């Protein structure tokens, strides 16, 4: 323990192997715990496309849905090129 604290104080050597292990674990578990099947992700993507399409014209093939690490959290990241704003139809 002292060893670890010392390493942190002098800021040398970077993360110890257990810090790496812990980070990797936390990230792996986010996926595991979500327990989302590809089917679910596909359904989700289809629904999201439908909703966004009401407001924007988007490139459906250029759309990607991902789970990513951002800082300490995991984020659901949706990326879609917007072609144009939908005209008001009313």
């Amino acid at each position, binding site marked *: 323990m002292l060893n670890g604290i010392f390493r942190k104080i002098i800021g040398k050597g970077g993360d110890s192997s*257990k810090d790496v*292990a812990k980070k990797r674990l936390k990230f792996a578990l986010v996926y595991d715990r979500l327990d989302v099947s590809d089917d679910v992700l596909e359904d989700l993507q289809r629904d999201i496309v439908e909703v966004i399409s009401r407001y924007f014209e988007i490139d459906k093939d250029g759309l990607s849905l991902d789970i990513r690490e951002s800082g300490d959290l995991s984020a659901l990241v949706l990326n879609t090129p917007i072609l144009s704003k939908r005209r008001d139809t009313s």
Partner: protein
Amino acid sequence: MKGKIVVITSGKGGVGKTTATASIGSALALEGNRVLLVDMDIGLRNLDVVMGLENRIVFNIVDIVKGKCKIGQAAIKDRRIDNLFLIPASQSDNKDVITPEEMIRLAEKLREEFDFILMDCPAGIEKGFENAVVAADEAVVICAPEVSSIRDADRIIGLLFSKSITPKLVVNRIVPEMVERGDMLSHEDVVDVLSIDLIGLVEMDDQVVVSANMGTPPVLQKNSKAGGAFRRIAMRLNGNEDLPLVVPQVPNRFWKKLGRKIGLGK
């Protein structure tokens, strides 16, 4: 009598389920409970050899479930510890010869005859796990401080929660020197990741291998650190929930060096 069924499980193989079952069960019996150990690892039985009872097997768990014998005929009585019994697994069957319904029925009978019934679960999350867990009242998850073991433990914990069981955690195979160096996850790290309550910390102990060689559970071995840790886990399971956790420590170097200087030890 209305006994408790406790399943000892881990997900990943080889992290110490069988060792823990043998030790915790022996310790519970030494405390005066009537204890039954059940080897649910059908096809890969091991609890019998860890307990040193392999020469006395006549019937097994499958025989009981299929009505070929009575519980009392299959349960081997330990001669060293009073009130300790083992029902061995069958070696020649598949894990799916027993159904969950049959386990539930058997469990009802076992609860009438024993205070504690410890189920030594096979590795994995398939049929064997299902059978070991289906009738359990409580669960102890064994986990080593390694990425793969913790990940599998997380999966198992999720499955147990979905069966309305709140498992308790044992971190086994702790090497204090490595934890100190930052090369092994500490028990705090493991708990931080898994977020369940600890029931014990067991260090890596050569005595465990010696015990396994001899067929005597580590709790019977004097000076076994792991044995002591398992005894404390048994006390906690036995209602002594506030017993403080003992964290494995690096042996005191000063005394070790001094010992060497004056010619004691290595």
